[in-house]
């Protein structure tokens, strides 16, 4: 019985560690995608400014409360606007941004194809 308890405790300890590892990974991923708004060219993850430290804490708390990545982004966009994300989401303001490279790619491809056919 004692041995069983021992194994159970070990199992619980390890499983919670794995959970925590997942959370830390998610926290890192989210803060790397957040722009430190008072720094120049730094993500929240990279910055040690007061603003970034507090924002890291907010992200950590929200993950602990069970918020998903998207929900966290949404709540921060409400406060700071889309600018806070390094990876902007697809909406009517960013269609141009997202589809322009594809359009240019297709346009270039068409020119190349035309040239090849000519020859």
């Amino acid at each position, binding site marked *: 019985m004692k041995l069983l308890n021992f194994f159970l405790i070990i199992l619980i300890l390890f499983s919670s560690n794995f959970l925590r590892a997942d959370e830390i990974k998610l926290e890192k991923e989210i803060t790397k995608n957040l722009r430190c708004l008072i720094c120049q060219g730094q993500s929240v993850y990279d910055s040690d400014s007061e603003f970034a430290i507090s924002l890291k804490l907010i992200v950590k*708390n929200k993950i602990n409360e069970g918020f998903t990545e998207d929900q966290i982004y949404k709540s921060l966009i409400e406060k700071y*606007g889309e*600018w806070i994300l390094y990876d902007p989401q697809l909406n009517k303001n960013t269609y141009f941004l997202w589809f322009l490279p594809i359009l240019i790619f297709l346009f270039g491809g068409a020119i190349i194809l035309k040239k090849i056919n000519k020859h």
Partner: protein
Amino acid sequence: MRNRIIYSLIVIFFLFVFVILYKGLSNSNLYTPKANIKSIPEFSSEIFLKKNTVNSSDIFNKKNYYLLNIWASWCLPCRDEHPLLINLSKNQKIEIIGLNYKDNLNNANKFINELGNPYSTILLDRDGTKAIEWGAFGVPESFLIYDNKIVKRYIGPLNLKLIDEIKNYIK
């Protein structure tokens, strides 16, 4: 004919780039995004030098103008704007609420004793998370509030011109 079209297209392209870059020269290099936050966030906070906590809905409950001022004793620009706040606090039509940001309580107390207290209530934000709820960037920052809505936000220290603007609002 074809060369001419290509030539004019290139000229147009460079003109377009020139105009955009030229316009950008006069822009501030500190970009402050337009935030969508219009109504005040809900939060509860400790009160400075008291042990009880208070909810945001209990503070901004009157149909009155409020100025939420985020400050800290370690923040030099806060010292500069403090006399202006003291002056503004004499106005009966506005209530100034302080949000003490990541501060040492003893230092904050000294700051208030030395420079005076314009705040009707001082809330505590020990870890900076409440300021983020407000969409704030740092200290000092002020929010003019009426009827639970943010009328105007001021990033950085207030000056005489901005105080006049606030006085115009609360007339």
